[in-house]
């Protein structure tokens, strides 16, 4: 099983994200591997541990995205590649998917490409399917469990967590798999893993290196970012001598204000 896990670098979910000078700012909050991608990396590593092969962490992003890739290496990924190019800095998912697909093709011989279901910054969740579409591979999205994997027969069976239920799907390999957090519990990088990752040289591929000499324009243009309208709330504390009295008062207020 030769496996790619695609990772993105994002601000920590605990960061206070604001708009400053027309730009998104997360202050000095740390940049981390996109939390969903940790589940993807874990599943990739478990697959390799069960069936052999190797796991390559792949990211498209600025030079700083190295940290996300290093986290994947510290978790135990064998190799890493960073696709970084000034021409890709304003890329949307349409362009990023092209770069990821091109990099996966350049790596070659890949059976599975794991993704987190979405990135916690842009929250679009379309990149895994777009990469699959470009590669001509099946896209298995929102995967909550891998139920069977047959490396010889080149098939994978998964449970998908859809909005209205769970679907069991069997697919030929190679395939793209995007995972939800039900799939597994990501491991913490070991001390040895962190040391190994900090010393690793991560190859950086330019757009030209992956055959994208001319980078197509993004389909999306971002006009502005702004803070969401402030929700002014003044909490009305409900008190009383007993739980029953409090409940009666709260119920009365909810009905009075036509909340319910």
């Amino acid at each position, binding site marked *: 099983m030769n496996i790619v896990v695609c990772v993105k670098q994002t601000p920590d979910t605990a960061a206070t994200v604001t708009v400053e000078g027309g730009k998104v700012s997360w202050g000095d909050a740390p940049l981390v591997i996109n939390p969903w991608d940790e589940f993807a990396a874990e599943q990739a590593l478990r697959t390799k541990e069960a069936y052999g092969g190797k796991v390559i962490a792949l990211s498209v992003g600025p030079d700083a995205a190295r940290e996300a890739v290093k986290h994947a290496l510290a978790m135990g990924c064998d190799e890493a590649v960073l696709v970084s190019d000034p021409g890709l800095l304003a890329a949307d998912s349409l362009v990023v998917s092209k770069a990821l697909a091109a990099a996966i093709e350049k790596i070659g011989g890949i059976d599975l490409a794991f993704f987190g279901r979405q990135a916690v910054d842009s929250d679009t969740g379309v990149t895994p399917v*777009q990469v699959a579409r470009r590669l001509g591979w099946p896209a298995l999205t929102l995967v909550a469990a891998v139920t069977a994997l047959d490396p010889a027969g080149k098939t994978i069976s998964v449970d998908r967590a859809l909005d209205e239920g769970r679907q069991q799907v069997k697919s030929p390999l190679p395939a793209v798999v995007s995972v*939800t957090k039900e799939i597994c519990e990501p491991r913490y990088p070991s001390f040895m893993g962190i040391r190994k990752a900090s010393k690793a040289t991560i190859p950086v591929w330019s757009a030209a290196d992956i055959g994208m000499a001319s980078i197509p324009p993004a389909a999306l243009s971002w006009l502005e970012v702004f803070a969401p309208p402030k929700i002014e709330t003044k909490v009305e504390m409900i008190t009383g001598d007993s739980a029953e009295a409090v409940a009666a008062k709260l119920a009365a207020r909810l009905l009075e204000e036509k909340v319910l």
Partner: protein
Amino acid sequence: MVRQLGQRGKSSLQDVRPPKDWASKLLRDAGAEVLFLPTTGRTRELAAAVAVDLETGVVPDLVGFEVKDGKVVGTRPIYAGKVMEKVVVGAKPQIFLIRSRVFLKPEAQAGKTGTVKKVDAAVGEVKTEVLGYKAAEAGVSLTDAAVIVSGGRGVSNNPKLAPPADITDEHQKEIWKAQQGFALIRELATVLKAAVGASRAAVDAGYVPYANQVGQTGKVVSPDVYIACGVSGAIQHLAGMRTSKTIVAINKDPEAPIFKVSRFGVVGDLFEVVPALTKELKTKMGR
């Protein structure tokens, strides 16, 4: 269904079932300028693939839009709603996935119809095989719910409960207690015809399935009423529910951050307050 959409004002309707190849062909042949779909797991997937075929852009979770210079300018939350962005799709069709419960459903107008155009749907090669399907547990869907009752880590903290003697494992004892606590949450939810939500802490501790999780790494919801029981209000949880119209918090800790976003607050024991509230609302609302 097609007739119902016609009555709601859609003028030209095409019966679109997902296979991606012909969805792309259909949109290309029709010269469609804008495609609106709801935001679901399936539509995200369809839109993503179509966007690649037609080299265009997808804007999921649309919460607002305006038309400027012949283009739709969409507004959507990013960073789990901590920031909003305005975005334009330069290519055609501009694809927008609408977030549920944001736009009002137009009233059905009896007698108004659209034209139905039948198209040949040649399904291309399908490589995957669906082996089975299991519908989710019956109940109100979180993303569509007008009312949500949510439980947090505090739901397992009822000191008055003693787990049965045959449960010896500490974690299993905690889960057992949490299940009794969530039973109270469900009773209130039933009376209010509400969906049941949970914080990440409650899901990670194994109290309820991930499908119930509200927050940045769960579902983002925007009900009319959100009743948070034993939920402290971590920033990731708030990101998933703070656009709720009215938030009610019941928590024993007066310093819990959830109170800062709430309209009504009760500092108290949820194991006493929630059942009392259920009883009170059941009588008052005649349910």
